[in-house]
């Protein structure tokens, strides 16, 4: 038997050699300029331009002086770069009676966003953990109520909430707005966390229970360390959502507590004097900078977390 194999080998090898010289071998060559590639890159280019062009106009305009803007070439780069509009937008643009720029709104927004984000994520993660792992009596009913809450239009709830806040003496204050943001973030965040915890193997939870860990020990020592990706997702959703909020900011606070978005609107839409396009553009970019930064820093984690949460649910 073994003799036969040895004899057979040279003949087979020779046959293979001939095939190598004549036929295709190795990696299949890829054509750079195929119709498919042109389609893909063409589409991507158009889509990118569509989104980048307005941003380009904003950046360019914000760096021009007013005389240059009046010439009307909105796409041309600035002849003389000036940061004057940025400084003015930040520290001395007028909104109504105040002329201290966007800086006050910025700090208001920070003071609204940070506590709202932390509190809402804390509560929602515990909600989601309890709903997915400790199937207490009425858990499904509770969850249904929460989800239905997500579909009720905000406008319907504004007036009742104004009354509630007034009754408990928080209307017009920053803490009142923080409470409103926390409540309105609850349905979607709870859903997010519940689905994430449901996607973790159930046996981990069982093992922890056999090990004697209770509700909080399992949450803090087993679940929390495994849930970092979904915490990042929730954080991004909340920071961008609350930062960009306009409606609640206008309705539930007094002018001295207006968030940045409301103040931006007041600057851009102020009717007195000349329209300072460069200041408006700079103010808009400043307001959008925070969500933009959040995306840039955590974009990769965001996609990973969304994918992780989407596996099951």
């Amino acid at each position, binding site marked *: 038997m073994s003799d036969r194999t040895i004899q057979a080998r040279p003949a087979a090898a020779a046959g293979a050699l001939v095939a190598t010289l004549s036929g295709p071998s190795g990696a299949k060559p890829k054509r750079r300029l195929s119709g498919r590639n042109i389609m893909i890159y063409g589409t991507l280019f158009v889509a990118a331009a569509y989104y980048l062009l307005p941003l380009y106009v904003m950046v360019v305009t914000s760096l021009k002086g007013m005389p240059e803007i009046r010439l009307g070439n909105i796409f041309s780069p600035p002849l003389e770069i000036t940061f004057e509009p940025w400084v003015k937008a930040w520290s001395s643009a007028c909104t109504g009676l105040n002329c201290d720029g966007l800086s006050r709104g910025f700090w208001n927004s920070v003071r609204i966003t940070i506590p709202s984000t932390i509190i809402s994520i804390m509560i929602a993660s515990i909600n989601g953990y309890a709903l997915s792992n400790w199937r207490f009596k009425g858990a499904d009913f509770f969850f249904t109520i929460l989800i239905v809450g997500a579909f009720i239009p905000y406008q319907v709830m504004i007036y009742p909430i104004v009354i509630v806040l007034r009754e408990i003496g928080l209307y017009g204050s920053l803490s009142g707005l923080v409470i409103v943001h926390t409540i309105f973030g609850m349905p979607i965040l709870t859903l997010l966390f519940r689905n994430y915890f449901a996607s973790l*193997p159930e*046996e*981990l939870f*069982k*093992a*922890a*229970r*056999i*090990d*004697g*860990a209770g509700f909080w*020990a399992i949450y803090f*020592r*087993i679940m929390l*360390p*495994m849930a970092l990706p979904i915490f990042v997702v929730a954080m991004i959703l909340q920071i961008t959502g609350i930062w960009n909020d306009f409606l609640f900011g206008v309705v539930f606070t007094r002018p001295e507590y207006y968030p940045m978005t409301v103040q931006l609107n007041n600057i851009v839409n102020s009717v007195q004097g000349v329209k300072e396009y460069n200041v408006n553009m700079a103010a808009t970019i400043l307001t959008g900078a925070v969500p933009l930064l959040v995306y840039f820093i955590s974009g990769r984690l965001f996609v990973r977390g969304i994918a992780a949460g989407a596996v099951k649910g």
Partner: protein
Amino acid sequence: MNSSVSIKDLSLSFGAVNVLENLNLEIRDGEFLVLLGSSGCGKSTLLNCIAGLLDISEGQVFIKGKNVTWEEPKDRGIGMVFQSYALYPQMTVEKNLSFGLKVAKTPQAEIDKRVARAAEILQIQPLLKRKPSELSGGQRQRVAIGRALVRDVDVFLFDEPLSNLDAKLRSELRVEIKRLHQSLKNTMIYVTHDQIEALTLADRIAIMKNGVIQQLDDPIAIYNAPRNLFVAGFIGSPSMNFLNGELAARDGKPVFVANGVTFGLDGYDADGTLKAGRKAVLGVRPEHIKVNEDIAAGSEIHDAIVDIEEPMGADNLLWLKHAGHTMSVRINGSRRFQPGTAVKLAFDMTMASVFDAETELRI
């Protein structure tokens, strides 16, 4: 011997679905009991009920004589090993092992001692500083067993612990679990759907179907004298040959007739009476059919044709056509037959089983 785990009239239902109904089970101290059954038969559910991870609807669970029906899992004196290992991914092996003890606020010196002992028994000392993601499947399962070991419990519960491993590791770890049981002498309850694991490990096997224990007996008794058709068909690979026919009498002796062929039942150890005219099923295991020169003198001879041959190394499995039936016969691996060959057969009735066709119970 004392009973270690005892289950009395246990029922569990999810809504209208009864998963377990009036189940009774006594497990002796130090016994290795295997719950065997196909998926969905309620074996894992039963294990979760013993562990206290599922609240039962009715009945009682006793562990070491103590009624633990309403106790938390941690207070039942059990350790559990899961199919998916269920190691805490963010903790090192050492932290995984000591987590339960830390939660129970055991003194650090005691924790170190117990972890060291478990690591020594399972030979995982070099892995203590690693994370579960850096371990192979076999090592992970060893750590999972270690986590039950450090808890110093009376009863070990295994929920299909080897099902996620490849065939070679599975047989290695199977031997290790058996060795562990021999040295620790703890009570172990082991859930599996793999009959080889059940037969090799168990002191007693409980075969389950639809939430009911079909037979509870030692492995040899289950293999040789299955109590009903389900058990007979479930245990054994390749499966037992079943012939449908009826009982008759010939010269005053009971015989079995199928498709006009008569099988003498000399030597069959009947539980009941082999009454003539009763519809019945004859079950013979592949290794209890003798071929050609293996046939002892004086045996009843049957003719058959070889249909297919499946050589498996040590054994050779022949699929034969005999009187309108297809049956499998296990012979020594060195004996080969061409398809179409005519062979002579003899059935070893001392090892056969006869079942009532209606009640499916052994006669």
